[in-house]
C-alpha cells in the first residue's frame, strides 16, 4: 500500500470505510510529514496536532455510523483567514498576532460536525491580498515543485500543503483568484464556488462582495466531497443563498458528450507563456475529443476587469480593515494618546501591500472621487457580469487559462505591484461576475504545473465538477507529484 500521506481524499475515504486504515494512523502520518517538510515548505502557521489526534480518535470511534459525511475522519488544513475557535487566526498579519477567535467559521464548524480532522492553519498573503504568499508577515511558503518559486497566492499555504502531501485537502479563499492561481501553480485542483454558495461567516473579510471559500485537493472528486460538507445556506451570512445543494458526487458521470464549451478569446492574453498556452489549448482539445462541442466566444469587457477589481476590492477592504486598531484584539503599539496608539498600531503592524490597498480603497471612496471610481467600477462590474450572462446563453461552461505564466521565482515581482496584479488577469473577472471557477492540472511548462480554468453558470458547480472529473478520467496530470 501507498504511504498514507500520499492518499487522496477519495482514496483515504475508501481505505477508512474498508477498515484498511484508521483516521489516527492517517493523521499521525500527515503530522509526521508536516514536521519533516515544514523547514522546506513552510505551509503551516499553526499545527494543531493534539486536537487533530483527538478528532481522529473520535472519528475512528464513530466509524461506520450512519450519517457520517464524506469527510468523516479525513484530515484537512485551513487557510489562516478562517476563524477557528481556540486556535490562533492571524490572516498572515502582525496585526492579528496571537489573536485566538472565540468561535468557528461556519465552514470550520461544518467540517468539525462532519467528523473531519483539522490539521492546522496554513499560510497566506496578509489578509489574502497577494498572488504569491510573499505578503505573509510570517514568511513565504515555497512551491513544492521548485522551492525557489512561489506557490501562488493568496492561498499559497493551502496549495503547497496539498502538493507537499502534508494534507490531502485544504480550504482556501478566493477574492480574485486566490484558490485557482495557487492550485494551478502547485499542480492541484481547486474550486471557487459561486458567490453565495458557501457561507462567509468567520472568513476574515477582504473584499466582501467577492470573497468565497472553496476546497483545494488533488482531484475533482476530492473537491466534490469537501464542497458537499461546506456548501449551503447559513443564517449567519445574509449573502449565502438558499439554493439547494445538489449531490456533487452524483454529478460525476464522466460523460460530457454534447456539452458546449466556450473558449473566450480574451483570456489568451498577450505575453502569455507559450508553454502555458499550449497546455491549456491541448486540454481544450481533449475536452472536444471527449465529445464536447467547442465554441469560440467573446467576453468583451474582460480587459476592464483588472482596474475594476482594483477599485472595488480595495474599497471594501478599506472599510473591512478599519476594525484593526489594537483596541479589542491583537497587539497594540504604545503611544502617548489613544489616537497615536491607533495610528502606530495600524502604521506598524499592517504590511506594505495591505497599506497600499487601504489607501487605494480610501481614495476611491472619497468625496469627489466616488462617482469617478467606485460608482463607475460598479457600473463596469455590471457589464462584466452581463458578458457572462450572455455567453452562458450559448455555452454550458467556459475553458480558459488560469494565469499567463507558471509559478515565478520568489522575489521576482515584489518590487512591481502592477506585474503582480497582472498574474490574476484571468481569474479576477470570475469573482466580479460571482460565477464559479474550477482549476484542474493540465500539463507542464518548463517542468512547472499549468492549470486549466473551467468557468460555470451561477450555482452550477455540478457541471463544472462533472467536466473536471471527466477530464481527470482521461488524463493523469492530477496524479503527478512533485519529487519532494
Amino acid at each position, binding site marked *: 500500500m501507498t504511504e498514507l500521506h500520499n492518499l487522496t481524499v477519495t482514496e483515504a475515504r475508501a481505505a477508512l470505510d474498508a477498515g484498511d486504515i484508521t483516521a489516527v494512523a492517517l493523521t499521525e502520518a500527515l503530522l509526521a510529514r508536516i514536521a519533516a517538510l515544514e523547514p522546506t515548505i513552510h505551509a503551516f502557521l499553526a499545527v494543531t496536532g493534539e486536537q487533530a489526534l483527538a478528532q481522529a480518535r473520535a472519528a475512528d470511534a464513530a466509524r461506520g455510523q450512519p450519517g457520517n459525511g464524506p469527510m468523516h475522519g479525513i484530515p484537512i488544513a485551513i487557510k489562516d483567514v478562517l476563524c477557528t475557535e481556540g486556535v490562533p487566526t492571524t490572516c498572515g498579519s502582525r496585526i492579528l498576532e496571537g489573536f485566538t477567535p472565540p*468561535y468557528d467559521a461556519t465552514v470550520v464548524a461544518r467540517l468539525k460536525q462532519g467528523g473531519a480532522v483539522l490539521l492546522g492553519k496554513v499560510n497566506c498573503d496578509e489578509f489574502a491580498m497577494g498572488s504569491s504568499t510573499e505578503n505573509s508577515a510570517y514568511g513565504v511558503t515555497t512551491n513544492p515543485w521548485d522551492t525557489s518559486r512561489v506557490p501562488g497566492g493568496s492561498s499559497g499555504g493551502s496549495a503547497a500543503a496539498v502538493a507537499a502531501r502534508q494534507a490531502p485537502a485544504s480550504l482556501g479563499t478566493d477574492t480574485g483568484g486566490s484558490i485557482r492561481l495557487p492550485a494551478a501553480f502547485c499542480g492541484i485542483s481547486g474550486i471557487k464556488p459561486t458567490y453565495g454558495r458557501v457561507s*462567509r461567516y468567520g472568513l*476574515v473579510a477582504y473584499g466582501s*462582495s467577492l470573497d468565497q471559500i472553496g476546497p483545494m485537493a488533488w482531484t475533482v472528486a476530492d473537491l466534490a466531497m469537501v464542497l458537499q460538507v461546506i456548501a449551503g445556506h447559513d443564517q449567519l451570512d*445574509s*449573502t449565502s443563498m438558499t439554493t439547494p445543494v445538489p449531490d456533487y458526487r452524483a454529478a460525476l458521470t464522466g460523460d460530457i458528450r454534447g456539452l458546449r464549451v466556450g473558449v473566450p478569446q480574451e483570456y489568451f492574453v498577450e505575453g502569455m507563456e507559450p508553454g502555458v498556452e499550449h497546455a491549456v489549448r491541448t486540454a481544450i482539445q481533449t475536452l472536444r475529443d471527449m465529445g464536447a462541442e467547442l465554441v469560440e466566444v467573446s467576453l468583451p469587457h474582460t480587459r476592464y476587469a483588472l482596474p475594476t477589481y482594483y477599485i472595488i476590492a480595495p474599497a471594501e477592504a478599506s*472599510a473591512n480593515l478599519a476594525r484593526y486598531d489594537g483596541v*479589542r484584539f491583537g497587539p497594540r503599539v504604545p503611544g502617548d494618546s489613544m489616537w497615536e496608539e491607533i495610528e502606530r498600531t495600524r502604521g506598524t503592524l499592517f504590511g506594505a501591500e495591505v497599506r497600499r490597498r487601504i489607501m487605494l480603497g480610501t481614495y476611491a471612496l*472619497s468625496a469627489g472621487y466616488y462617482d469617478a471610481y467606485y460608482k463607475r467600477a460598479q457600473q463596469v462590474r455590471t457589464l462584466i457580469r452581463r458578458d457572462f450572462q450572455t455567453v452562458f446563453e450559448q455555452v454550458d461552461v467556459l475553458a480558459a487559462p488560469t494565469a499567463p505564466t507558471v509559478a515565478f521565482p520568489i522575489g521576482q515581482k515584489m518590487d512591481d505591484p502592477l506585474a503582480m496584479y497582472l498574474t490574476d488577469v484571468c481569474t479576477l473577472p470570475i469573482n466580479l461576475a460571482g460565477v464559479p471557477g474550477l482549476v484542474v492540472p493540465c500539463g507542464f511548462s518548463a517542468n512547472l504545473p499549468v492549470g486549466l480554468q473551467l468557468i460555470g453558470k451561477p450555482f452550477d458547480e455540478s457541471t463544472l465538477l462533472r467536466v473536471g472529473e471527466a477530464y481527470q478520467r482521461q488524463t493523469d496530470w492530477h496524479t503527478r507529484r512533485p519529487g519532494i
Partner: protein
Amino acid sequence: MKYITTIGLEVHAQVRTASKMFDGCSADYAGKAPNTSVSVVSMALPGSLPVANQRAIELAALTGLAINCTVNHHSVFSRKSYPYPDLPKGYQITQFDEPLCSEGWIEVSSESGETRRIGIERLHIEEDTGRLVHASDDSSLIDYNRSGVPLMEIVSKPDINSPEEARRYFQKLRQILLWIGVNSGNMEEGALRCDANVSVRPEGQVQFGTKVEIKNMNSFRAVERALVYEVQRQTSLLEAGGTIAQETRGWNDAKGVTEGQRSKEGSHDYRYFPEPDLPPLVFDDAWVSARRAELPELPDARRARFERDYGLSYQDADLLTIERPVADYYEAAVAAAQSVGGSARDVANWVTGELFRLLNDTGEDYSRMAERMLPQHIASVIELLAKGSINRTVAKQVFEESFASGGDPAQIVADKGLTQISDSGALAALAREVLANNPKAVEEYRKGKTSAVQFLVGQVMRATKGQANPQTAREVLEAELNV
C-alpha cells in the same frame, strides 16, 4: 432688522427589540455590567457578519407610517466610515441614499392650539455605537453593550420656525414613538436623542443662513433653551456685522451656552458605500399593508374622536391622549361608568383632576395608572355619587383611599361607614343640638338673615364628619328654625 429662524431636527430613537440590529445578542443593556451584552458581531471580531433584525425593520416601517412617510419598496444599507473606538467596525451600518422611509409629516400644535405641519425628510435604520468613558487616570474605557442596538434616525425638513416649535415637534414625535411602542422615550438613558440644525437670516433674504449643528441636548427643556441661545447668538453676530461659521456646537446645560466643538479631522468624509454584507431591503405592497395593519389609532385621531364622541373639550381630550395607556385607561373607565349610568365627561373630570393629581403627588408613571386604580373603581365612585350614597366631599376621600389601597370604593364606604346620612329623622336630633349650641346664628336667621343657615349646615356637616346630605341637613334645620 428682523431675522427669520430656520430649524431642522435629527432625532435618534432606539427601536425596542429583544435583540440587536445585526445579531441575536440582547439589546436590553440597561443596568448591565460593561461588556456583558456583547457578541462577536457587536464587538466586530474578525470574520463576523451582520444579519438584519427583521422586527427592527418592521417597527421602523411602522414608525414611518405613523409619521405619514412612504415606506420605500427598495432600500439599501450603507457603510458610513469614521474612526472612533466606540464604533468597533470603524464604520456604522446605516442607510444613505436609499432610506427605508421618506417624505412624511407630523402636526405640531402651538400653545393656542393652532397646528402646523412639519415635514419629515426621511426615516432610516442604523445601529447604535458603544460608549466611551474617560477615566480619571486619563485613560479611556469602552463599553460595547450599546453597540449594535437598533436605531432609527428621523430627519425633519427645515420647517421649524422657533425654538418652542422645535421643542413641541420633538415632544410630538416622542408621543407618537411611545404610542406605537417602538421606543421607551427615555432621554436620560439616551434611548431618544436629538440634534438640531439652526440658521437665521434677515427677513427678505431668500437663501438660508449658514447652518450650525447643535448637539448634546438631553431634555425638551434643553432643546428649547439651547436653540433660544443659539438663535440669539447668531442674530447678535449678524447684527454686529459678523459671519456665522458652519460648525458643530455642543450645548452646555450648566452654563446655558452652546460651545464650539473642536474636531480633530475637520469635516469628516464618511466614504459611504453600499453594505456588501447585506442585500437590499425589498418590500411589496402586501408587506407594507401588513405594517399598516399593525398601526393603532394615533394620538391626534384619538383626541379628535374623544372630542367628538365624548363631548370633551380640546384641552381635556389632549390631556387624555398624552400617552396611550392614559387614553386606554380613560376609555376603559368610560365603558365601566356608562354601564352604571355615569358619563364620559364625569370620567374625564375624575381622571384629569383627582387621578392626575394623585399620580403627580406620588410620582407615579402615567403608564402604571391602571395598576394604581382600576378603571372600574372610578366608575364605582361616580355611581356612589350619582345614587346619593356619598356626597362630593366623601367621594374625593374615597377616591384617594381607593388610589392608595387599591380597594373597591363601595367597600371603603361600607367599611368606614361613610354612607351619606339622608334620613331627616336621623339628622333632626343633631340639628336641634346645633341650633342649641349656636344661638347667635339662630338669632340672625330669625332677624331675617336667611344666609345664616349656611353656617348651621356647615356645623351639621362637621358633626357628621361630612357624611350628612347637605340638602337634607338644610331642610331639617329650616324646619326646626321655623317651628
